């Protein structure tokens, strides 16, 4: 098998035995990029020169007996909403199309310290607002399984890159499903950690009480390894939590005997594609055969989650995006202006795309005088009810299953003009963000050649159980398909 199709842990084994070098891996990945990137368009920026130099350095270190970390020398794609010193960071927005950060985000620094080699910055929905990568200023990324369909979003570039072999692993960010939904649609593994496990310093803010960075990988083992590299408290993010980080490798045990696994009632009904339901039921059978006890659980307030989210997230976004004013960085209008306000208004009108404007408007409205209590205040109370629903469910079970996405990948353009339809793409993932819980998506089938994702949700900071459950399923089910791009 080609190197670009191998998971990181396998490549690491081959490096350890001296079969291959870090430079050969990087070469294989960039050769693949050269071949398939014109079709997939997963990247905004490629950093090939820098990556080649780093790979050579890595090999020199390995020769000297240094660089023993489990991901040392592995090529990694980074979503273009994480600040990378000296490398363009656009958020796929016109307003940041020339922005070159003067510092590295904490997670970017951590993966670099771990010896990972950045391949480039991947495409996303503008400011991570979207479920299809179609709102990117730079154009739509395509799903490697079917180039006529979307890769999901907002981390569509990262998920497509991993699926297409254009990166061995990738970083995404997830506010309402932006790691898990594209992972599901692209047939790869994606984990949103518990809110507070991973630092947000240097992640361009969308909705600060929901955003989390996490891994997108070819399998669950790689997911555990990359999570290990990025988890941990950071004094530069006061919402990151001081807890002992476990050895996630120890979660990779293919045994769920006696475990209590919940199936979410509300996410197996109306609005979920039949083929998706069938695949989830099959997954439940797999767990059952492995000796897990399956219990139906319910989130009585789940039906309100989407509404609450589409008030909370835009409200926080409207506040976070106020910083794009054409003064300190980013685009500034070249039109003649009357005064400061005129300059702000023209700059922002030119720099932001449609979806971002829509959400800024929605959020500003929800926070404005006379509406605050009815919309934002009420949404935050609904959030409490959803947290409580999950707490009750987790009294009975160790982990909860649901589909990741209500459908497989949809056609490019299909939902673009209908924001409400698009928002429904996140119906299974949003409650998890509102409650701050860890959730993973792993492949659990194909329908008409398009991947289906299984979501596994855990208790706060119980990534160990989430990974173990996912690993057990992966070993038993053995999803080995890869997109046929050649």
């Amino acid at each position, binding site marked *: 098998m080609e190197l670009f199709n191998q998971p990181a842990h396998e490549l690491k084994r081959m490096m350890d035995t001296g079969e291959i070098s870090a430079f050969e891996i990087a070469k294989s990945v960039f050769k693949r990029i050269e071949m398939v990137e014109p079709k997939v368009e997963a990247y905004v920026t490629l950093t090939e020169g820098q990556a080649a130099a780093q790979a050579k350095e890595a090999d020199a270190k390995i020769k000297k007996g240094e660089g023993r970390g489990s991901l040392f020398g592995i090529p990694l794609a980074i979503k273009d909403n994480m600040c990378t010193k000296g490398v363009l960071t656009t958020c796929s927005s016109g307003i940041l199309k020339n922005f070159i950060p003067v510092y590295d985000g904490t997670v970017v620094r951590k993966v670099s310290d771990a010896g990972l080699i950045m391949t480039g910055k991947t495409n996303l929905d503008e400011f991570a607002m979207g479920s299809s990568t179609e709102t990117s200023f730079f154009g739509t990324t395509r799903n490697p399984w079917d180039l006529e369909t979307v890769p999901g979003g907002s981390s569509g570039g990262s998920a497509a890159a991993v699926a297409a072999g254009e990166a061995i692993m990738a970083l995404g960010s997830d506010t309402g499903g932006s790691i898990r939904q594209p992972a599901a649609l692209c047939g790869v593994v994606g984990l949103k950690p518990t809110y507070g496990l991973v630092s947000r310093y240097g992640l361009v803010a969308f909705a600060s009480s929901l955003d989390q960075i996490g891994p997108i990988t070819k399998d669950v083992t790689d997911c555990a390894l990359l999570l290990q590299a990025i988890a941990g408290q950071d004094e530069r993010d006061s919402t990151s939590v001081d807890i002992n980080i476990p050895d996630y490798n120890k979660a990779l045990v293919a045994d769920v005997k006696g475990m209590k696994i919940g199936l979410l009632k509300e996410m197996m009904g109306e609005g979920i594609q039949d083929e998706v339901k069938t695949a989830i039921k099959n997954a439940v059978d797999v767990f059952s055969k492995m000796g897990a006890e399956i219990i139906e659980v319910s989130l009585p307030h789940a039906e309100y989650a989407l509404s609450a989210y589409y*008030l909370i997230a835009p409200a926080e976004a409207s506040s976070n995006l106020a910083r794009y004013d054409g003064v300190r960085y980013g685009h500034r209008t070249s039109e003649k202006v009357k005064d400061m306000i005129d300059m702000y208004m023209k700059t922002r009108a030119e720099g932001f795309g449609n979806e971002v404007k829509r959400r800024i408007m929605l959020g500003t409205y929800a926070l404005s005088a006379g509406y605050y209590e009815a919309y934002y205040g009420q949404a935050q109370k609904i959030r*409490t009810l959803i947290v409580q629903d999950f707490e009750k469910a987790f009294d009975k079970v160790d982990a909860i299953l649901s589909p990741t996405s209500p459908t497989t990948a949809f056609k490019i353009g299909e939902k673009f003009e209908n924001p409400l339809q698009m928002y429904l793409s996140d119906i299974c993932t949003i409650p998890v963000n509102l409650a701050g819980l860890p959730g993973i998506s792993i492949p659990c089938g194909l329908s008409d050649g398009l991947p289906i994702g299984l979501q596994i949700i855990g208790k706060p900071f119980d990534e160990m159980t989430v990974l173990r459950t996912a690993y057990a399923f992966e070993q038993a089910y053995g999803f080995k398909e890869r997109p046929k791009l050649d």
Partner: protein
Amino acid sequence: MVSEKAITKKDVEHVALLARLALTEEEKERFTKQLGKILEHAGKIKEIDTSKVPPTSHIVPLDNVFREDKAGECLSQEEALSNAPEKEEGAFLVPKIV
């Protein structure tokens, strides 16, 4: 008391000013329609009586986070200005304010 009236073009103009967004006529029309639809859907949350439910603004119970009052690294003036659309004499340049 919140009016149950649908969002109007005038509301959209008011919010656009608050948000510092210059909208075209076409955008005003479109957002009036789209925001109306989204808010109608979002209005579903008003169905529940939450008079006894506390709000959640943050999922992790956090107290104030303090650090020592010690100067750390910071950006140089040159770095801070490196992305400025317009600058002059080591400062950000903006249109005349007063």
